[in-house]
C-alpha cells in the first residue's frame, strides 16, 4: 500500500472510532491538536497492529511519527519496506 492509502485507512478508523460526528480529521491534521489522548492513541496503535502486523515500539513514539495520519502512514510504509 502507498502512504496515501495507509493514511486514508488510518483516517477512516480514527473518524469512525475516536472522533465525534461532525468533527472528522483529515490525513494531514495534527492528532494531538484534534484531541487524541493516551487511550485514543492506544486504539490507533492497536489498529496498526491488527492491520499492518506490528506494534510500534516505544522508542518510535515520537512527535514526528505520531503527528498526523499521514506521518504515521509514512512510518508504517518505511517499516514495511525491505531495508
Amino acid at each position, binding site marked *: 500500500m502507498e502512504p496515501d492509502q495507509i493514511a486514508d485507512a488510518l483516517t477512516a478508523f480514527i473518524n469512525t472510532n*475516536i*472522533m*465525534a*460526528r*461532525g*468533527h*472528522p*480529521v483529515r490525513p494531514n491534521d495534527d492528532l*494531538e491538536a*484534534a*484531541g*487524541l*489522548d*493516551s*487511550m*485514543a*492513541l*492506544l*486504539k490507533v*496503535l*492497536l489498529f496498526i497492529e491488527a492491520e499492518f502486523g506490528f506494534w510500534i515500539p*516505544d522508542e518510535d*513514539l*515520537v*512527535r*514526528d511519527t*505520531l503527528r498526523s495520519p499521514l506521518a504515521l502512514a509514512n512510518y508504517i510504509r518505511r517499516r514495511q519496506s525491505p531495508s
Partner: protein
Amino acid sequence: MRGADLVLIAMQSLWARGRVSNNTLLVVQCDAPIAPERIRRALDRFLGSCPWPAARLRRPFPWGKLHWAAGPPAALVPPPVRRRSVASYAELHRELEAELNSPIDPRRDPPLRFLIVDCGPEPATAQGFLVLTWFHPLMDPRGGQNLLMQLAHLDSDEGDAPRAGAPPSFVPDPDPRPLRERGRLGRRSLRYMRTLAPVPPVSPGTGLTSPGLVRFRQEGFVEDQSSARGERATREITWRLALVGKAMAGLWDRRGLPAVPFLVPISVDLRPKGDAGPTFGNWLAFHFARFSPAETADVAGLARALRAQMADAVRDGQIDANAVAMEFLHYRPLALMRRYLPAGSSGETFSFNCADLVEFPATLERLFGHSVVNAYHVPAVLPRPGIGVFFNRCAPTNNLVISWIDGAVSEEEVAQIVEVVRDGMEWTRLP
C-alpha cells in the same frame, strides 16, 4: 449518578464522624479581576435551558436510586457567586484550601458554587481568580470546563438565542445496547475487578482513623525545548504514572509501608474527540493499573509494561465493560457499593490517585472579558488513599497538582514527589 460517583459517596461511611469533602475545584487565573455580575447573569441564562446547577441530590422514599432533581425553571435558585480580595498568593492558597474543606452537601446545597478572588496588594494591578467548586459526582473535570465554556458563551452573546446550530449536550445519550447485553458486560467487568487485587493495596491513608484537612500544592512548569527527549511518550499517562509510581515507591520506602503491588485507577474519558461532549455526569470509565514498587526502578520499562496492560484491557474489552458496569451499579444499593471495589469490602481502595486532566480548552483563552493566564483542577482526595497527583496543561504551562489529607502525607513528602516528577519530565519550574 454512575458507579464511581456512588462508590465515592459510599466511602464516606468509613469516616462517619467527620465531614469528608468530595469537592473538586477548577481554578482559572485571569489577567484582571472578574466581575461577579457577569457570572451571575450567565448562570441565570444557563438555568433557563439547564436546571442541574440548581439541583439537589434526592432518593425516593422508601426505595430508589440516588438522582439529581430540580424544580420548575421559575423556582430555581442560582448557585452562589461570592467575592473575596486577598493581598498575596499565600492568602489565595488559604482561600482555595478553605473551598476544598467546606464540603458541599448536595442534599441541601446547590451542587456547585463560584468564588471570585481579586489577588494583589493594589486593586489596579490585581489578578482575577475564578474558582468553580463542585460536588465531584456532579461532573468530571472535562464537564467543569464545558460548563465554563457554556457560561462564557452566554456571557458574550447578547441575543435571545444563546447558540447557533445544535444545542450543547448537557448529559450523555443513553447506551443504545439492549439491557441483557449491558447486564452481561457489567457483570463481566465486576468479576474482572474482583481478580485485580488478591492482596488488598496499601495507601498512605491506610489506618488513618481521624483524617485531617484536605491540602494541595500546585506548581507550573514549562517543557524543556532543548531536551533530547522529543517523544510524545512523556505525554502519555503510562509514562506519567510510572514517574509518579517511582516517587510513591520512595515514599513507601521511607515510611516502611508494605511492598504489596500498587493498584491505581486510571480514568478514561468516554467522550468522542473533537467535540466538548456532555457536561454533567462523570463520563468516565476506569482502567486499573497494577505494578510493584520494585518495578519503578526502571521508569521507561514500567511505562512500556503499563502501556501493554492498557492495550490488553482494550483488546479484552475491559474498558468498554467497565463503562457499562459504571452505569449498571446505579441499580445496586449504596450500602453494598464498596463491595464492588477491586479489594472488596476491606475498606482499602487504591494505593494513590493519578490522572492527566488534559488540555484547558483553547476556546477559553478569554473568559468574562479577561485573558486566561493559567487554569488547573484540584480534586479533593478521600482519606484513603490520602494522596492524588494530577496533571493538566494550559498552554504553555504544565500544571502539577498534588492534593492530600493531613495526617496521611506531610508537606515535605509532597515536595519530594513534586521533585521526582519534575526531574523525570525534564520540566523547568515557572517563576
